[in-house]
């Protein structure tokens, strides 16, 4: 995504012959203008906000004093929230991949003419409000709820153990709410896999497993990468699951940013926390995408 040495395997180079020069870039203009006006410009404004003198206030206004110490203060007070957010989001992403891959695979290869129906069934539950669904998980996972009962009966959970208000509930909520972000890109990728390649692997005496490992899975890698990103990124900034299914002990960085913005009106702190979160996510993503060798995706 940033300028780097092109290698022989770089898909940009491979595809060069099919790309046309000329006026095609004009297609990009309307969307780019939208992003420039309503994303880039406000974000730059946010950067200046993060450097305001923290002694100002919401009511009286702030002075721009290039107060970089805001960042130091923000990290000192909240590093544990950052760590917790990335841990929860990471675990939730792995579980989403474990659930989403079989689902996407089944739709792409096994659903036949029910493919479209199954595909919409993936999203159908998510047309119902996110808040309503999370609130019903609160009922399902509650101390009197069926899941807690069953786990206590089979002694996976102590008699006085609980699920709600624990990290388990928050991570379960994240998994549930971000699952379609994993499933849809995986499906898009798997659906494009040429069946003849898998047959060829079988013809060449690959076992079904090694055929999957060496043909199907590598071909679905762009889907895996975009699926994990689309799950991990919103999960690490989420605060609704922690608010509805957890307690302040499970709060994530999103909760802190939200309260700094909306409750405390501490704009410099909120802005610097936001930009730190954004920066960490971007760095992690670039590193991950490089490792996976799918730069063309971004």
């Amino acid at each position, binding site marked *: 995504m940033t300028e780097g040495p092109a290698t022989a395997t770089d898909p940009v180079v491979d595809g060069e012959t099919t790309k046309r020069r000329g006026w095609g870039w004009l297609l990009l203009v309307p969307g780019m203008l939208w992003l420039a006006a309503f994303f880039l410009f406000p974000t730059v404004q946010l950067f200046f906000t993060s450097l305001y003198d923290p002694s100002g206030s919401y009511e009286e206004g702030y002075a721009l004093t290039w107060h970089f110490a805001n960042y130091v203060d923000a990290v000192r007070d909240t590093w544990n929230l950052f760590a917790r957010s990335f841990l929860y989001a990471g675990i939730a992403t792995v579980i989403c991949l474990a659930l989403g891959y079989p689902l996407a695979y*089944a739709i792409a290869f096994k659903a036949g003419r029910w493919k479209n129906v199954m595909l919409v069934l993936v999203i159908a539950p998510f047309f119902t409000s996110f808040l309503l669904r999370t609130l019903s998980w609160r009922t399902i996972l509650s101390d009197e709820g069926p899941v807690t009962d069953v786990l206590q009966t089979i002694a996976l959970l102590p008699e006085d153990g609980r699920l709600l208000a624990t990290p388990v509930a928050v991570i379960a909520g994240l998994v549930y709410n971000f699952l379609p972000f994993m499933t849809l890109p995986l499906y898009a990728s798997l659906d494009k896999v040429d069946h003849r390649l898998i047959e060829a692997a079988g013809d060449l005496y690959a076992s079904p497993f090694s055929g999957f490992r060496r043909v199907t899975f590598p071909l679905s890698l762009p889907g895996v990468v975009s699926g994990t990103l689309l799950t991990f990124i919103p999960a690490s900034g989420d605060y609704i699951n922690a608010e509805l299914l957890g307690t302040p002990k499970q709060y994530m960085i999103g909760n802190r940013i939200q309260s700094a913005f909306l409750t405390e009106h501490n704009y410099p702190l909120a802005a610097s926390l936001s930009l730190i979160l954004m920066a960490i996510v971007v760095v992690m993503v670039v590193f991950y995408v490089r490792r996976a060798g799918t730069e063309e995706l971004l």
Partner: protein
Amino acid sequence: MTATAHPDLEAGGTRTPPQAPRRSPVRWLADHLVLIVGILVLVYTFVPIGYIFALSFNEPTTRSATGAFEGFTWDNWTSICEPDGLCESLRLSVAVSLTATVLATLLGTLMAFALVRHSFRGRKSSNLVIFLPMATPEVVMGSSLLAMFVSLGFDGVLGFLTLVIAHVMFCLSFVVVTVKARLAGMDTRLEQAAMDLYANEWQTFRLVTLPLAMPGILAAAMLAFSLSFDDFIVSNFTAGQSLTFPLYVYGSKLKDFPPQLFVVGTLMFLVSFVFVIVGEVWRRRRLAALR
């Protein structure tokens, strides 16, 4: 759906190579295991829907209905619009999401074509700009947008317009990525073949490129609609005094929770379901007509 769907699923699968000669029992089990696991995952995603469905018939004895099932009643279904502002919030949500979906899908698909099919200076930085909104927590986008609207003097008109602006903004990148994923792996030889057979550029686009890209575009539109319809965080900042449905639910969480909310939750699900069935019937009719 498992019981009735199963034979058809197998029948549909015969396009791919299940009759290959070296199919071992292990392979057979593995094949069906994936389908079973997939269906189980789908069932899991429907668990809260079941709860919402059941609670839509709940007759709560207290004012707040988030808790357990207390008694059966049809009343909630006949009095959907009774809670103050509920139906207005739904109307606003539908209007915002439809507008935002159309705009985002259109702009995003154009962008995806530009990025995948054309080479120009600044492609990589364009990709970065498109990627950044996805790496930005919603709370950041929402608050920075609100700050900008206020500083531009939009305070008075916060509502439909500002919601659409914000929703298109955060849906756009998802549309671009989804359509791009489809375009990036598309076999361009099919288009070359069409050109070799004397199709002009427009015919090639309309008869080859667009149908091949369509699953990606539709998936992107569905994603955009569900993102927009369900959005709480960004809307919370940009809605001003108006309430979308998620904002209405969140507001109710803090005070009385009318059971009609569960009716709306159920209806949302049922409506999308009807859309699917109608779409599928239409698709099959069209296929039959082509034969």
